[in-house]
């Protein structure tokens, strides 16, 4: 698939992802903030779950996307795929930061601590630092091909953190609660499950939409910069 065709395809279909994400999130927020009942133990504070968990899940989805796109880049060496990698990394950092902030806010009333060195929290903080490192590496290297290759290798190595984050609550004795939705079943009350599911799916689709928009943005910016560079060199000659 050529870059122009891919960008055209993203431009054509992005709006449907945006509409679905906005619809799911608006119903999810309404049910989460207005109609769902408070938790027996946590009370009203449980409502933080409807933003915290979707942000964390989406951060992991974004990193998994970055991982697969990095493999795709190393295979095809296509510049537009590198743009998509860059876009996915930026979004993964945003959702990871959001997950850490909302988690700290949830931790204070429930654990009486903003932060604990729990396996789940620590492994998630490592993901955040990996993404900061990834984006810093992108600014250090001038050669576009070298930059894309090194960043793709870093993203592939960093992927090892994802299963650690996911299974940390099962592998180690953890303060963080175990998985609420797993192969063993769902341990959330039905009236909490609806906003939880709507927000989780909605934020994931929003990420897809944001990835489509951001990839176009980075591609067009590079195109613009390349053309500007060409004008300058033509002017000098």
């Amino acid at each position, binding site marked *: 698939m050529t870059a122009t065709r891919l960008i055209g395809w993203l*431009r054509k279909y992005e709006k449907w992802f945006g509409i679905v994400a906005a619809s799911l999130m608006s119903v999810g*927020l309404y049910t989460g*903030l207005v109609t769902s009942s408070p938790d027996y133990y946590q009370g009203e*504070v449980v409502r933080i779950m409807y933003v915290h968990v979707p942000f964390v899940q989406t951060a992991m989805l974004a990193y998994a996307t970055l991982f697969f796109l990095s493999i795709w880049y190393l295979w095809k060496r296509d510049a537009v795929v590198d743009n998509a990698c860059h876009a996915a990394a930026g979004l993964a950092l945003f959702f990871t930061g*959001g997950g850490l*902030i909302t988690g700290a806010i949830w931790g204070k009333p429930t654990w009486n601590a903003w932060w604990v060195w729990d396996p789940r929290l620590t492994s998630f903080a490592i993901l955040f630092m990996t993404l900061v490192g990834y984006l810093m590496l992108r600014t250090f290297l001038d050669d576009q091909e070298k930059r894309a290759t090194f960043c793709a290798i870093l993203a592939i190595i960093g992927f090892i953190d994802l299963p650690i984050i996911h299974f940390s609550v099962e592998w180690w004795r953890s303060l963080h609660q175990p998985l609420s939705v797993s192969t063993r079943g769902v341990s959330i009350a039905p009236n909490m499950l609806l906003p939880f599911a709507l927000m989780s799916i909605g934020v994931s689709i929003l990420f897809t939409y*944001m990835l489509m928009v951001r990839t176009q943005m980075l591609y067009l910016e590079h195109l613009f910069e390349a*053309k500007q560079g*060409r004008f300058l060199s*033509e002017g000098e000659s």
Partner: protein
Amino acid sequence: MKSFYIRWAVLLLIFGGIGCMGLIRYNREVKTLSPGDLLASESALGLRLLGMIEAGSFVRASDDEPTRFNLSEEGKKVAVVFSGEDVDDTLRDLKTIVVIGQWNREAGHFAASDLALIPNYGFISGAYLLSLVPLAFFLFFMERRVTILYVMIKEEKIYQAEKVL
């Protein structure tokens, strides 16, 4: 660009409306009063009173007497007569609690029939604002940038040099 701003205005209205509905629900079903607020308040029914049980004031229910204690906050205190169930032995001296009931102004006590958890709603609004507001700004500026770039392409600002070549 006009359709872009219209789309964002519609989104702002929808999500602002949901925020307002959440605020209405909070005022109706969650918001608590301090003893000072209660003494200054005109309403008397279906109130939620938040405060700390004053040390030495707690008297557990006996055969013919209900549980009694004083709830205090910021130097103001209110006598509470509690007729509900003390779930998990929640009631004790120096414990911060929320009691639900009605204010008996003539008798000078708050007749409570139920207990509630401390809402901690500041944490909820903090989490929502710190996650969704940056998300909206991030998305807005990103979409705006893409729209501007496409407008520039449409106006052939990027491809202008192609005609020269």
